[in-house]
């Protein structure tokens, strides 16, 4: 081959490899006028169907397209949303009034019919969202703007359920509900304009929105599991907001001229839930021993970069009815060994340790650090992991032996976690092995209408659960976000990214 031919060939490759990607679109933004941002979450979403939503990243994206009857904002305030008022008529019936002049993205006006159909859809057999509305028995239309909702029992969780009652258009639900998975039609502040699966989701501001029009006109969402990739994208200007900034990158971002870091105490607490139904965790001394064996301060200081708070009880510091006087277990490996000896395990034991991978900040590292600490007191762990949804669903059936790392998100009230995880008839309460005292306390506070008495019962519950060490209490993590300085947005403590209230400086 002549040298000239060779040169032409070489020139051609470069030309081709440079031109080809340009045709796949998505160049950097050049015009300053439209306010567009790109948000990187740590996982991709699978579906827009609210009945199948799982995981805060998915809920975040869906929340921009769909609305519920009520909402809890990033500062934990309760807000009216598609419902303007709700009134308790009897202990098990409520009257809910709907907002007027709300239009779906397809032009239909929202009425009580849509809510009735949506309720049926959300509570059908295959819906994963079903459990969120399990307290409700029926939803009936009184007139176009009014609903009557009956609950199965006196329901202190009514507000929470209102927020899970996502409203979808009855017309679509009757004809083709499966289309909602990738062609969602809601009442939300944004409409879906493009979804390249695995690549990006693009939304445009909804000019017919019932609330304040969003200032940001276009939002692009991407799921980027690698923290380094998210940081690199932020630094390169390819993203405006990224979640889960690892501690090592905080200084790099804070010192950057056009970027900043916003971190908040999150409601998300990471804990290890013991299988207390069988040995060895059936013995309270063993459970306590593991609580003493884990150096939570070291984990927070070293792995989380100081961004976290040691956990003492199942509820978050700002949750209503939290018991602030319960002290966390100190790090005391000698005491742990002593307790294990007392319980009949002088040489420790081997146990399964289940954990997710990549779901929470440094979850794998924390798991490995804990495994190392437990090894030092003689407890050998066999690690087992899986993708989060499959992992959680299997755990939820009661199948996991040993201990499991779970992150609970406790928003509304201190009893919420008990209802889900500790009450023997609770959704995932099987691991406690039925503690009659917890059950009795829980049922008492569940129907207690006097606020002060209820607070007392809950305080007692929190102290009791801590003493009984049904969990290895670990920490509440901080959520650390990296963002473009021009983006005016505050980090939420409940993992909700609300962009319709955000603004972009020019």
């Amino acid at each position, binding site marked *: *081959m002549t040298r000239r031919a060779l040169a032409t060939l*070489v020139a051609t490759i470069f030309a081709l490899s440079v031109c080809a990607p340009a045709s796949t*679109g998505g*160049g950097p933004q050049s015009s300053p006028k439209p306010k567009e941002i790109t948000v990187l979450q740590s996982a991709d979403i699978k579906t827009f169907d609210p009945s199948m939503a799982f995981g805060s990243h998915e809920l975040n994206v869906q929340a921009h397209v769909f609305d519920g009857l009520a909402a809890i904002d990033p500062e934990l305030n309760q807000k009216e949303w598609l419902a303007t008022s709700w009134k308790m008529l009897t202990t098990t019936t409520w009257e809910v009034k709907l907002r007027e002049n709300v239009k779906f993205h397809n032009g239909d006006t929202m009425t009580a019919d849509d809510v009735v159909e949506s309720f049926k859809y959300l509570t059908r057999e295959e819906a994963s969202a079903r459990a969120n509305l399990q307290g409700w028995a029926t939803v009936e239309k009184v007139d176009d703007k009014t609903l009557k909702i009956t609950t199965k029992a006196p329901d202190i969780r009514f507000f929470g359920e209102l927020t899970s009652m996502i409203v979808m258009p009855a017309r679509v639900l009757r004809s083709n509900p499966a289309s909602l998975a990738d062609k969602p039609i809601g009442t939300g502040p944004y409409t879906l304009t493009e979804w390249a699966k695995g*690549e990006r989701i693009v939304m445009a501001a909804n000019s017919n929105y019932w609330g304040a029009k969003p200032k940001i006109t276009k939002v692009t969402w991407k799921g980027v599991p690698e923290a380094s990739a998210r940081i*690199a*994208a932020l*630094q*390169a200007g390819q993203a405006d907001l990224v979640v889960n900034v690892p501690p090592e990158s905080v200084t790099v971002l804070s010192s950057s001229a056009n970027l900043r870091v916003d971190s908040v105490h999150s409601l998300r607490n990471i804990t290890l839930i013991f299988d207390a139904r069988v040995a060895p965790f059936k013995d309270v001394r063993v459970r306590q021993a593991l609580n003493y064996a884990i150096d939570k301060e070291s984990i927070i200081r070293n792995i989380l970069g100081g961004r976290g708070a040691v956990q003492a009880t199942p509820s978050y510091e700002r949750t209503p009815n939290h018991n602030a006087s319960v002290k966390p277990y100190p790090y005391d490996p000698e005491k742990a060994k002593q307790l294990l000896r007392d319980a009949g395990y002088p040489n420790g034991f081997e146990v399964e340790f289940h954990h997710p991978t990549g779901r929470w900040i440094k979850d794998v590292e924390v798991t490995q650090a804990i495994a190392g600490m437990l090894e030092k007191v003689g407890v050998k762990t066999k690690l087992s992991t899986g993708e989060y949804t499959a992992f959680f669903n299997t755990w939820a*059936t009661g199948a996991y032996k040993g201990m499991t790392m779970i992150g609970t998100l406790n928003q509304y009230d201190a009893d919420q976690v008990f209802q889900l995880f500790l009450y023997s008839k609770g959704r995932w309460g099987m691991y406690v092995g039925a503690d009659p005292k917890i059950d009795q306390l829980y049922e008492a506070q569940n129907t207690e209408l006097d606020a002060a008495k209820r607070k007392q019962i809950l305080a007692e519950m929190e102290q009791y659960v801590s003493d009984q060490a049904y969990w290895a209490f670990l920490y509440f993590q901080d959520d650390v976000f990296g963002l473009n300085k021009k983006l005016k947005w505050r980090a939420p403590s409940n993992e909700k990214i609300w962009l319709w209230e955000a603004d972009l400086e020019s």
Partner: protein
Amino acid sequence: MIRFVVRRLLVTILMLFLVALTVFMLGHLTGDPVRLMVPDTATEEDIATLRQTLGLDRPLPIQFGDFLIHAVQGDLGSSLRYRQPALTLVIERMPATAELSLAAMLIALVVAIPAGLISARKRGSWADALTSVISVVGQSMPAFWIGIMLIIIFAVQLRLLPATGRGETFSLVLPAITLGLWPMARIARVLRSSMLEVMHEDYVRTAYAKGLADKTVLVRHQMRNALIPVVTVTALTFGSILGGTVITESVFAWPGVGRLALEAIYNRDFPLMQATVLVVASIFVVINFILDLLYVWLDPRIRLR
């Protein structure tokens, strides 16, 4: 010729059948797929009922037959996680993988062919040595490490190229280089070897003796024959590219079929896993068949066998 084609076609169909069988067996070897599909509140009765509804209690050969019938019609089941038809999900991701694979192959050929030719022609020169070094190194270094190094250098340190993902300008460059490096090394090496072999063949020397110009000998005689092993090796490396997409797409978060397969495997999403392996393997088998035909066209000696 016809006999050859027909034989290859029959073998190809047999391969496809065996691929389907392998994939089907894989899906049923891990225990109970039913348990994974039910919500966590299901009772044993619910599970038994679902098993019956899905026909998972029938004997395996019947289930396999059913699987085949559906597969041929394009129904490969529904993804457990996405709740959408598995085949649709796979097809949605094909353009991304195709783009990456073709770009990688292009880079590989465009660099390897001149390199192989030059190093054969100028044995012992620095170009030859360089090609050889790249060949050995390119075939030994793990692709995922190369990818990560490229990310560190070009995305993190120099900020010239995007770190991961598809859709930005130049997103394709790093992944394509990563994926194309092994084929590049292999093709250059094979081309060099076959060119050297061909160069010493009698008919080439005869052509020179006849006084034909260097260029003519090269193009008309050497290249045509040297191309045969190149086509063979391209066929073989094409396999490594398809396999390599799994790793490269994982490193670069490229939204293609390879990454989908990996995700399906992590999620224990068996219908999706089956669908991806089935589709990729089938494409592989079919393309091999096409390359076989190409091979025959290039080398008349084969037809006579």
